[in-house]
């Protein structure tokens, strides 16, 4: 049983208050959708939940069976996809994933990694450096990065950015699969994707 609790999250950049008093409580098997116009703080909120950005005040608690996670356990509980996230361009898909698995303290065989790459429809390109990938292929690689450690919490910021029809279908499948057991947080303005939310946070007015 995984849960994400947001307690009065506020984030200020100097004078500008981007997030103010955001509260939420989500448990595994359900999903949260964050919507709002551009610049309303969707990405910031997801970065705060991911632990990439420290909130000015308030707390984020990621819990598994009532235990609040920290450090490596917290990092490994989260899969994150976002437009401003990039993987290593000079490394191949396989090398990228092998590195991230090792950095997370996990063992993944070549076969496991190839299967993961095949799952995001990049089979056959795993030995090419990411610099030769199109933006849609890079977006698919981000899903491989996010799914690599089988995290119970999946944070997706603009999940279908740069993707073609097949890519959108792939993301739909990943979301549907994850929603069964896992916890999903989406930041999107796409009407269809908003429909995935059991809870919705509307940012900015």
């Amino acid at each position, binding site marked *: 049983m995984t849960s994400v609790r947001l307690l009065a999250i506020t984030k200020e950049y100097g004078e500008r208050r981007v997030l103010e008093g955001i509260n939420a409580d989500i448990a595994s098997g359900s999903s949260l959708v964050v919507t709002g116009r551009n610049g309303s703080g969707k990405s910031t909120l997801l*970065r705060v939940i991911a632990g990439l950005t420290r909130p000015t005040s308030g707390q984020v608690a990621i819990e598994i069976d009532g235990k609040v996670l920290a450090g*490596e356990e917290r990092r490994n509980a989260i899969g994150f996809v*976002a437009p401003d996230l*990039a993987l*290593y*361009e000079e*490394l191949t898909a396989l090398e990228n994933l092998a590195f991230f698995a*090792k*950095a*997370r303290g996990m063992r993944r065989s070549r076969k496991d990694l190839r299967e993961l790459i095949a799952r995001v429809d990049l089979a056959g390109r795993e030995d090419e450096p990411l610099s030769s990938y199109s933006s849609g292929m890079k977006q698919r690689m981000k899903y491989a990065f996010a799914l690599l450690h089988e995290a119970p919490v999946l944070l997706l910021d603009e999940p279908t950015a740069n993707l073609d029809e097949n890519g959108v279908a792939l993301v739909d499948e990943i979301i549907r699969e994850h929603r069964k057991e896992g916890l999903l947080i989406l930041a999107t303005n796409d009407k269809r994707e908003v429909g995935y939310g059991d809870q919705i946070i509307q940012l900015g007015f």
Partner: protein
Amino acid sequence: MGTKSSSLASKAIAVYRKDIVSEFRTRYAVNAVALFAVTTLIAVSMSVGGFGVTDKNLLSALLWVILFFSAMSGLSRVFVREEESRTASALRLSADPIAIYIGKLAFNLTLLLALEIIVVPMFVVMMNAGVRNWTFFWLILLFGSVGLSAAATIVAAIVSKANAKGALFAVLSFPILAPLLVTAISASSAAMGGGAFADCWRYLRVLVSYAGVMITASVLLFEFIWED
């Protein structure tokens, strides 16, 4: 898929190997540092080599000035590149901050030592600098480099979040490296003159403790610097 937690060392090694492979393919830092070092060395030996500089203090001061500025030209790349290519977030999400610092430090140290293997013999030949005690000379370079890269790595992490990174890197590094440089200069001058063991040990002690203190402080502070 089996998952097994592994030690800090193996994660640091993963970061180190990743950086080495990246560097091998792009040659971002190596080219900058090596060319800078060789250019400076030639500039120095052209301008003063003709006078037949024999003063050991002056020679070793010139050597460390060259090494310091070469380090400043490239050692900030380890963090600046992660920020510029926007890979820092993926790294933050995946790796232990301490493993990242250690891996990056090891990378910078490798780079600096590789540089010294090329530049130092060139310096000795071009400047006609006689070295009496080679063992001690290399020991000083080794431990001096550990301290130099430890300080450069933590300052690189700071600078990667600031504007005007290039200029700031040397400005922030020099004052904290001053004690190390002063010691290393006296020590290599002693090694050129063939100093006694006791003399050498006195300098090495300072260099080793500087490196130790700098690495410890960096490990303690890195988390605060690294988080966004």
